């Protein structure tokens, strides 16, 4: 089995009005990674997601999915979408059924499973996302946090191998954000790949195995989440700030005149632990 999930070469997307959203983007996504896609508003993150799900077709360039060139006939798309699930930023653009359980069952029903299998999968997805008690609620009575969870459940029930999430925590308070991130942790698994777009560098820094930075329709960085924040050019170009844990650690090292080191703390807890065990003084 090829461990490259996506292999993108020179992907260009031009809208009908002539503007370009993607300009010769190249990127390789490996299986089993937790990838944070960073970039300023308008960098082309959402457009890239739509391409990875076959919802848009390249103006130029090509995309290989699991080693095979992507095709856009009905059968090929159905098979792609079985394997790649996408959660959109605005849940109101994603939920179209009148109640929660029905909405979650929409994807599995389209996969043509029998009713019992669908029901089981839906129950499981509702339990995982903690929306079971909302199951008969009409979609329009849900809060934003609940809608986001239902939208995720609808994708979860299809059990995709690859997850694309567009700003899953935008607009949520810290409590609900953490709930969504915990959910992603429970989904993660060596053969599942998760790509998450976000503006929140702190979240990306803490959560991701790999960071991809986009700017103006291109990938300007791909690599581990620590080194990216050492690269001042990339940060400037993509309007990125440094995660505060990273910045504090750098400042602490500097204030004690200590050399840079390889192992940076990734979470607040790690940073605090570093302080307590006095490692950095």
């Amino acid at each position, binding site marked *: 089995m090829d461990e490259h999930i996506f292999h993108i070469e020179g992907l260009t997307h031009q809208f009908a009005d002539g503007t370009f959203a993607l300009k010769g983007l190249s990127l390789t996504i490996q299986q089993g990674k937790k990838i944070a896609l960073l970039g300023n508003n308008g960098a082309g993150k959402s457009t890239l997601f739509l391409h990875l799900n076959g919802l848009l077709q390249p103006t130029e360039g090509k995309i290989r999915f699991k080693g095979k060139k992507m095709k856009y006939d009905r059968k090929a798309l159905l098979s792609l979408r079985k394997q790649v699930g996408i959660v959109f930023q605005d849940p109101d653009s994603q939920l179209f059924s009148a109640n929660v359980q029905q909405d979650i069952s929409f994807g599995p029903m389209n996969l043509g499973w029998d009713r019992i299998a*669908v029901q089981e999968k839906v129950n499981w997805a509702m339990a995982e996302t903690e929306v079971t008690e909302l199951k008969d609620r009409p979609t329009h009575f849900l809060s934003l946090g609940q809608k986001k969870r239902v939208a995720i459940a609808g994708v979860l029930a299809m059990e995709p191998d690859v997850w694309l999430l567009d700003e899953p925590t935008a607009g949520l308070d810290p409590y609900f954000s953490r709930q969504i991130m915990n959910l992603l942790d429970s989904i993660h698994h060596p053969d599942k790949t998760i790509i998450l777009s976000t503006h929140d560098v702190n979240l990306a820094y803490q959560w991701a195995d790999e960071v991809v930075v986009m700017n103006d329709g291109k990938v300007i960085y791909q690599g581990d989440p620590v080194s990216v924040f050492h690269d001042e050019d990339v940060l400037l170009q993509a309007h990125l700030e440094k995660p505060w844990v990273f910045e504090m650690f750098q400042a602490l090292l500097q204030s004690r005149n200590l050399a840079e080191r390889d192992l940076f703390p990734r979470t607040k807890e790690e940073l605090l632990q570093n302080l307590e065990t006095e490692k950095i003084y």
Partner: protein
Amino acid sequence: MLLIDKYAYFNGLKDVHPLEKMVFALSLLLFSLTVRDMAVSLITFTVMSALIIFAAKIPLSYYLKLLLLPGFFILSGTITILFSFTGKSTSISNIWWSWKIGNWQIFISDDSFGTVANLVTVVFCSISCLYFLTLTTPITVILSVLRKLKVPSLLVDLIELTYRFIFIFLDTALAIHQSQASRLGYGSFRKGIRSLGLLISSLFLGVLQRSGQLTMAMNARGYQENLSYIEDTYTYSSRNWLIAIVILGSLILINGYL
């Protein structure tokens, strides 16, 4: 907004099988409309109102408000039927009240009085049946019944999509309205018309934008041609069927006797 919808999800009879409620409400509605008998209408109205208030636990004040809602229509409709005009020379029998202006005569005949009294009772009886259904049975549930009854799926899909989008647009329209009001958009008639025009226009642009996004979201989840879902499970209750049959049966008997 749309309180009827809200009560439909949170009322005392929400767990009753939707088909039972539909059959019950519709058969009573059709029966009372067919016989158009004042006694039958009054009894049906009382039974339905009692069920709405005591069984479904809809607040009395809200139910009364709903009953008054079609007031304008009843008023204009009944006044129109009640009063008749004729040239002065014509002589009419059974005049209950009359008034002459110039060559014309305005009058209320005994018959039209009867027609109106009957009409008003039948109308209240009918709307109580309709309210019983709409206040206790959510649209989502009615839709799943329709799917089971093999109503063409395209039609049910259209109804369902319309229902879902109503609430999205309602939120948007309300938000735009508030933001216009905060910037003094409804200070006068002229401004009001202009603001409302802008509201409708941007709502319409929203329709076009949404349709693109929603279509993508559907396709992403493997949409083929029909919206298919698993269905809700409700259980039939023989007790409920019995109650329904007894009520309908006694109404038929009452009608036979009178």
